[in-house]
């Protein structure tokens, strides 16, 4: 489904990702862990096509060269990013935003746009995956949302847009234990054996709820160690210093 090969990424001459390769098959959940500043968020942005990066290497998604596509095309192909810091957009209501996004997707699938009634019915249905308060939908996108509300809103959007590949960028950061459980349960409900996930996180605690098929440790712009869920547990026990030591050896 997704194949990243020999990826090199720099921003303003500074190299951040230095030879990154990863293959994600349908239905797989890959966790990418690693210390701050190691290029995890950059990876998420490069997959989704954020401008401002110099990129070498290749990213192929469902057989298509992703690097030649604009952000919105990639999104309509089925790539979703749950933002670490969701952007506040004053004046654009959640309802307008979600309907526009959903109808873009439907247009691509050759479906007619949803009427306001159908849309609200769908919203209600998706609340089974993750509960969001009604008043959130009436407000401007992310404006004045608490940290927890923002993250829930991201997962809710994912539930609505039903992507084929979801990249979760530190969806657990800034969440208390209850909010974390809610968000993680939402994500788990979205696992259907076909949809793939790349879960970027510092900590193992999110992975307790979303058991990954693979765990990769990213350090200094590349994957330095891969394994299964056991690797996350080991990392939690020994800390990132352990990885550094191993690297020196």
């Amino acid at each position, binding site marked *: 489904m997704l194949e990243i090969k020999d990826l090199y990424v720099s921003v303003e001459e500074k190299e951040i990702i230095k030879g990154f390769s990863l293959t994600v098959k349908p239905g797989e959940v890959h966790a990418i862990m690693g210390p701050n500043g190691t290029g995890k968020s950059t990876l998420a942005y490069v997959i*989704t096509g*954020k*401008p401002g990066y110099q990129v070498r290497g290749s990213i192929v998604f469902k057989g298509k060269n992703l690097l030649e596509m*604009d*952000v*919105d095309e990639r*999104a*309509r192909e089925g790539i*979703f*990013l749950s*933002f670490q810091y*969701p*952007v506040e*957009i*004053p*004046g*654009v209501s959640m309802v*307008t*935003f979600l309907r*526009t*996004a959903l109808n*873009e*997707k439907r247009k*691509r699938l050759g479906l007619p746009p949803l009427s306001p009634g159908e849309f609200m019915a769908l919203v209600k249905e998706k609340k089974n995956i993750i509960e969001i308060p009604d008043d959130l939908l009436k407000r*401007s*996108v992310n404006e004045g949302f608490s940290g927890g509300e923002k993250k829930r809103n991201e997962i809710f*959007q994912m539930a609505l*847009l039903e992507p084929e590949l979801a990249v979760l960028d530190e969806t657990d950061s800034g969440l208390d234990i209850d909010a974390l459980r809610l968000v993680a349960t939402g994500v788990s409900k979205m696992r259907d054996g076909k949809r793939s996930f790349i879960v970027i996180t510092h900590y193992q605690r999110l992975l307790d709820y979303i058991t990954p098929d693979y765990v990769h440790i990213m350090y200094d712009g590349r994957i330095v160690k891969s394994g299964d869920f056991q690797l996350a547990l080991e990392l939690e026990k020994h800390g990132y210093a352990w990885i550094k030591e191993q690297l020196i050896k």
Partner: protein
Amino acid sequence: MNGSEEIFNLIKHLVETNKDDLFLNEHQVQAYHTFLSLGLPTNKHEQWRSFPLEKMFDKEYTFKLQAPHVTGDPSSLFSCQVLHFETYLFSTLNGEYVYNHSPLVTFENGMIAGSLFEAIKLYPNLINPYIYQIASNLHSSFVALNSSLARSGFFLYIPKGIHVDKPIQLINLINTDIPSWINIRNVIVVDEGAEVEFVQCDDSVHDKNNLVNIVNEIYLHRDAQMKFVKLQNKDLETSLVTSTFVHQDKKASIDYVLVTLNSGVIRNDLVIELNGEGARAELDGLYLVDKTQVVDNHVYVHHNVPACYSRQNFRGILDDEALAIFRGHVKVARGAQQTDAYQSNKNILLTPTTRVFSEPFLEIYADDVKCSHGSSTGRLDEEAIFYLKQRGICERDARLLLMYAFAQNILEHIEPLTLKKSLDEMVDKRLKGELHPCALCVLHCESKPLEFKIKI
């Protein structure tokens, strides 16, 4: 000799040769002398520093010294099929007051509306305390010239305690091939505790080289409330100068929303005098300009007494080579304690070739006040565009959503709701590049050519 001098000399010549029967009263003579002493503005004047005066003055105009009335039904002048925006409709066409049967109408509730100069004749005692008293000729030579030469306009009087049941709409339409300099004077008096919604539309149809110079004099008595929506949708080649003066007594309140959808060259001056405690002024402005359009808003709020409230919130989106100027001035007089005043001007520049001059300014002579101001000018938020596009929304729609949201901050203040909805639609079309001057307005979908009989 530049255009400004030429026009100045032309006016002088016209007045000198028609002097004997030109002036109707001493005020007009005085105003003419003030005009002579002020002269037409140049870029050396502080108030016109950044304004491209040559766009206005390097043109030829004819002056009409007598403005006859035009007979016709204002509502047939503007046909509207889209909107059900019901108003009491009044209009001027090429600076001439349009009416069907009677130039001045007295309604059952005592409201008087119609031709200003008819009102001067019929109700001198009612109108004299206001006309020429609220606007200051020294404010600018445009005001002085208007005081001196305007021979038509609109008068509105709302008696004590009357709440007018539907909005009053005044359309100033220009539809002529003759390049003209047109002066229009409007006087509005809202008596104690009365309430009115007023909509003023400045439109033009295929006009070339027209300059419309409008002065509004508004008096809001104690506890009076006015909602004032001003719409401007003008051709590229036209100039519009508006000067609105508002005097407010105790607890009088104004909600003013200015929407400029297209301009040639527009200069709007708004002068608010808060003269009674508890008076309140909520002043909003939105301008959407592109090509070589120019819009210049000067807002002066004078807190002359304690405990008044004012808000200025002006926003603009500029494209191509458009130019916008905002100058907001709040003056808090000595002793005007507990003043609450705020100014904000925000601009979005879509191209690097647009220009903005933004100058919020506070002048405070009291110590117990709450005053603040802010100004920001920048591009659309790239992070927000990325966020929207990541959800599958295409670039164009993402940008439109953001621009629309930016404009909503002003539009949400518009009442009544029917008017807000049609303005939403117009702004939406404007942002998509589908709205052209004279194509669609709140009242007329298209202007029909009409035969008019000139009353001599």
